[in-house]
Every structure is written in C-alpha cells, then in structure tokens.
C-alpha cells in the first residue's frame, strides 16, 4: 500500500502518470479487445471457447485464435488429450483458405491456432474439428469479413 506522500510524488510527474495510464490502459484494452465466443460442437459432445484474434477477424493478415475445449455440461474443465484440426471455407465461393493454419497444443490443454489467413471479404465458415479417438466432432462458426 503506497503512502500518501508517495502518491503525491507520483502525481507531481504528470508525464509519468499519463504515460503509466496510457501504458496500462492500452494493455488492458488489448486484453479486453479479444472477444471469446462459446460454440457447441455439432454433435453436442463439446463446447469450444474460442478467443478471437486481437482486432477481430480481418482480411489478408495471418490471424491467431485460442481455443479451449470443455465437455458439454462442464464448462470449467479443459478436456485433456484432444486433437484439433482447423480449416476455413467460403461456402458462397466454393473454395477455402490458401494456407494451412498452424496448431499448437499448450500445456494447459488449450490450443493456439496461428496463420489462419482469410484472403477475401465475405462469409467464411470456420471449421474446428475436435479429435478424441475414436470420435471426431466438428464445431463451426460463421465469420464475416468486411
């Protein structure tokens, strides 16, 4: 707990205070800007908690997602030992993405998806296939790129 005098000294340096506020503010905004969506897998076995790219889904840039998979009815515990396959398609265009996303399973069981590249504006369908042998269950989400 800082003493009042220390606080005053901090306030005396307005540049430092503004800088601090900007730095912490921007860091918080960056953290908060990542929308998390929950998507049920099509077969109902899993819920996928998808943290969207910072700045949202945009055209023509490699995007990163974080995906955590829980069992339906138990949203607190990440399911360990799963596999994840990610792909994207433009249903109106009859084609997919031109690059293969990189997927890395992290120590806490969640996944980091990188290099998701959506090169055109329009409707993309994002496919997230959860692999838990012998099952593979798909979840999908609609993404609109302006």
């Amino acid at each position: 707990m800082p003493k009042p005098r220390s606080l005053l000294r901090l306030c005396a340096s307005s540049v430092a205070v503004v800088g601090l506020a900007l730095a912490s503010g921007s860091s918080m905004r960056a953290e908060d800007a990542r929308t998390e969506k929950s998507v049920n897998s099509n077969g109902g076995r899993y819920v996928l908690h998808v943290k969207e790219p910072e700045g949202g889904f945009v055209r023509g840039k490699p995007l990163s997602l974080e995906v955590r998979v829980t069992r339906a009815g138990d949203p607190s515990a990440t399911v360990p030992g799963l596999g994840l396959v990610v792909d994207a398609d433009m249903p109106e265009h009859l084609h997919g993405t031109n690059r293969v996303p990189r997927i890395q399973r992290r120590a806490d069981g969640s996944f980091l998806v990188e290099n998701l590249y959506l090169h055109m504006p329009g409707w993309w369908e994002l496919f997230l296939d959860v692999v838990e042998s012998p099952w593979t269950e798909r979840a999908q989400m609609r993404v609109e790129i302006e």
Partner: protein
Amino acid sequence: MTLALPFLFAALAAQVAGAGDVAPKAAEPARRLVDQLDATQVQRILRHGPLEPAPPDPTNRVATSDAAAHLGQRLFYDTRLSLDGNHSCTSCHMTSRAFADGLDLPVPAGASERHSPTILNAVYQRWFFWDGRADSLWSQALQPIENPRELGIGRAGLARLLVEDTRLAAEYRAAFDEAPSAAPEDSDRTAVNAAKAIAAYEARLVSADSAFDRFAAALRAGDLDAAARYPEDALRGLLLFTGRANCRSCHAGPLFSDGEFHTIGMPPKGGGKLRDSGRFRGIELLRADPFRGSGPWSDAPDSERAREVESLVQSPEQWGQVRTPSLRNVARTAPYMSQGQMASLRDVLHYYSTLDGAVAAGHHGEQVLKPLALSDGERADLEAFLRTLDGVDPPAALMKPLPKAR
C-alpha cells in the same frame, strides 16, 4: 478504424453543417453524392488506402540499399542481359507504358504464354508472376534472365558480364563489398546478388497519389470540399465497385488486389478450354525453386515471410487460377488478363457484365461469378472510377537508364 470512424463522421457532420458558409468549390451533384455516403460505404472506400510503405523483405539484405538500387537500375536497362543483345528488362516493362509493354503477349525471343504485367508497385506483391511461382522480387528477376525465351543470358553469363565490365564490377563492389566472380563456384552468388540489386531498384518503382487517393484522404480527414472535387461519375463507379458489382471481393485493399489467385472463366487466347495450369503448378514450381525465400540463397531463410511457402495449400481447384492484378494504373496498362485477351477496359467491363464466352473452371462457382448486367451508364461510371487509379510516376531519375560513364 472502429475508433476513427466516429471522429470521421463528426467531422463530416461539422462540414455539412457549415457548408453554407463557404462558396461551393465543386459541382453540386458530386457534393450531393459525397454527402449521402453512409458509414458502410465510407468504411469500404477507406479500406483501399492509403498505400503505406511496403513491408520489408528480409530475404534480400540489400533491398533498401542505394548502391544496390543504382546497380539494379544499370542492369534493368542493359540489353547485354539477353542472348541476342537486343532486349533488357525494359523491353517488357517499358517506362513509357507504365512499366508494361502494351502487348497481349511479349515477344523478346519467342512466343511467351503470358502477358507482361506492370512492375509499378510490384514491391507490394507477396507472390510474383501470374502463377505466383516466385516469392520475392529478386527471385522473380532471376527467372527471365534464365529463361531462353525471355532474356536468357543465364546466371553464369550474368556473372561474366559483371566481371568483364569494369563499371558494373565497381558498382557491384560498392553494393556488396566484394568483387563479382564468374568462377563456377561463385557465379550463382554473383548472379543472385545482381538479381537482389535489380529488386532493390524495382522496389523504388512505386506509384501512388492517384485522384482516388486524394479523394480517400479528403474523406478520411472529413474535408468534404476536397472530397467533392472527385469526379461524380468516378464516385458512382466507386460505389458500384465496392457495392453491387462487388469488385472489391478480389480487388481488395490499398493495392486493389487481394494478392491471391482466382479464375474468372476467362476464355484462353485462341479459344477452347483452360490450358494454363496457373497457381496449381505455380506452387510446385515455387517449392522446387532453389531461389525461394526459404532456400539457400535467401538472406533470411527462417524468417516468417520466407516460411510462408510451407503453409500454402495446393489443391485441384487451383488449376487455372492466376494472381489478382492490382488495379492501380490500370488505365495505362492495357491490354488485360493473363494473356492480354481484353484490349480495353471497356472490353473487361463488358465481360464481367455478360460473362460472354466464359469457360468452366473448378473455382468460384456460379454463386459468385454471375453476369453483373451493368447498364451502359454503369460501365461508363466504373471505367471513370478505374481511370482515377492512375498514380504519379516514380521520380524521373528512376525512369531512364543511368548515364554512361565518360
């Protein structure tokens, strides 16, 4: 963008409110159209600019070097790079034709299958050639030098030229801090360096500041008076481009190209079905190219940019796909399409309007590629818009061969 837009519209509103205080500086109809732009239209227009500095190419350590660009400019105009001694890079990329050649197919040393695109703003491209078989400006520059149907002098021949010509040798030393060598074990290195020098020159051939750019800048700044100087027919065409015609689907971003590969059912020259394998084979060629960004001649083979090749998808639907050309300077770079099948912008717009003669391709089903059924007026408006994408040429000193030594 999200943060900027409220400010933009506040500025626009302020301008509209105060419009009666100043004398009109532009034709009223254009002003009315500008005033009527809605948030989505403005947002879509602003996505086409500005043309920021190009991303760096770490695979070329001399990409921004003045000395390398100087050598590159020297080589670009040198006809000794061709087997017959009559052709240079500028034979197909002519300064007088916005660095294209005005031909449907180039003929330096024999028939070539694909049209010469402009190299203005090529530094912004991610993949090079119509099929994207090169992933850097420097690896692109090597291929015509190797190809006997284009320049054809080859890497060994280029290395010999750099050794034997004392001025070139001196300029090479200035750029690379070493002497050129034509010894068998060194000639590839010398030739690759020369290609990197050509790339350093080509990277400076940037053309922006078009009428469209000025319009977009005015709109971004909320300067409606300046925005209203944009021609009315061009603005109608721009709204079609970003709206009903949906040209922006592929011609996206500040370059008016998504940098990716598509087929539009364009019938090949001479008729028949698609014969050009396009991107499908382009990916194979890129992966096999020892001069790719992740290859041994690259200056950053492990960089993110170089390793993009590893994540490329190859699938049969890519058969016949060609890279979306940039529309900047499009009015100056006729004819159009990968074999120059379309002589004029009017022809191109007629094709998109009717899809006359379109051939079946395994990509972009009819859900997307539909005849636009444009009226004569709409086609004229689109053409007027496209003509506002002509940019300012690069500095005059870059638009000509370097003076010869006395």
